[in-house]
């Protein structure tokens, strides 16, 4: 939820990177969205089309990658990739687990269009 404000935050980071590397434009932005982040990929994509307007990333495509929750079991120490509604350890079935992935929203990759001269970036 609250996809537009998250997108604004993301655009700030993207614009900063583009400026830092002297990019002409941004061609793609890849984000990883945890299934427990409370963020809906389709809504983030549509918010992105609003947030990118008038910025250096105006032509950029957003690529969203959904990240399944990963828990570590406090009992047996094993890591399991699980589903949002079942965060139990797959190895021992225990419910004393902690979430190490799957509640995040991460800017994973930015593709920048730059001038061919390597000294500019």
């Amino acid at each position: 939820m609250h996809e537009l404000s998250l997108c604004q935050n993301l655009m700030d980071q993207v614009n900063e990177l583009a400026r830092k590397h002297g990019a002409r434009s941004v061609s793609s932005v890849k984000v990883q969205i945890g299934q427990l982040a409370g963020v809906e990929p389709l809504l983030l994509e549509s918010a992105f089309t609003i947030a990118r307007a008038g910025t250096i990333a105006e032509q950029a495509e957003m690529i969203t990658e959904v990240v399944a929750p990963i828990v570590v079991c406090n009992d047996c120490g094993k890591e399991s990739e699980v589903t949002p509604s079942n965060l139990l350890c797959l190895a021992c079935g225990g419910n004393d687990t902690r979430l190490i992935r799957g509640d995040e929203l991460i800017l994973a990759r930015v593709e920048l269009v730059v001038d061919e001269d390597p000294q500019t970036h």
Partner: protein
Amino acid sequence: MCDTCGCNITDGNRHLLTPPKGRSSLGNSPAKILNNLLLHNDQQADLNRAKFDSKGVLTINLMSSPGSGKTALLEATIRQLNGSLKIAVIEGDLETENDADRIRALGVQAHQITTGTACHLDAHLVEKALDHLDLDELDVLFIENVGNLVCPASFDLGHHRNVALLSVTEGDDKPAKYPVMFRAADLMLISKTDILPYLPEFSPDRAEGCLRNLASKAPALRLSSKSGEGLEAWIAWLHSELKSYRNARQQHETVKPNVQPEGRMLHRAEPEIRFVPVKKSA
């Protein structure tokens, strides 16, 4: 969701969207300021919590679907406590004073927040409501959030504990369907158990199982505000939370609800950067 329809803009935080007088709105566009809404919310939430802590008031955020019996639970709680704890209530609804009127009818101070279209309370709305309440000598403040299993989970109000209600007329798989909400709960209350005999399809054990599947250690209590069944355990939980809270305050500490704010934050890890070189234009 909320920003898509604009409903995260409430009367409490609307001022954050209005450019200050004397400055050009160009350099301070609504979109730019919207970016900071959650940050502003969290800052206000910390101020609210400091205010509660200075008065030693344990503040509990009640969340559920509409119609799960939040107000009925408060009415039953007031009757059961019979003045043994001093409480006050902030009510959140889109419209009407109805819920606050129900609380006041029992001799307890209440303030109604009407959010208009917003589907949740935020820290600024709560701050405004505090102007209408006397926190002195108070033991517990209940904030009855807008009935909604999605957005309220994302907004810190400055409270200390989250309680999520699940009534037996809803599906027993609600915690599985709304994991972000139920993971945030410090206590789950299965309400309206007096009508369980008519609802063989609802299994309290299955509901609790769905909560455990979220690796939640929060207690799950069953109660009926109407028959009074199970209210003692809920009151005991309240007393025990109040005791832990007061112990924390003696150490000049506070307690925070079991929310997972990291989830909605954009992590500041360095992204991979790929360059697409193009020929320099002359």
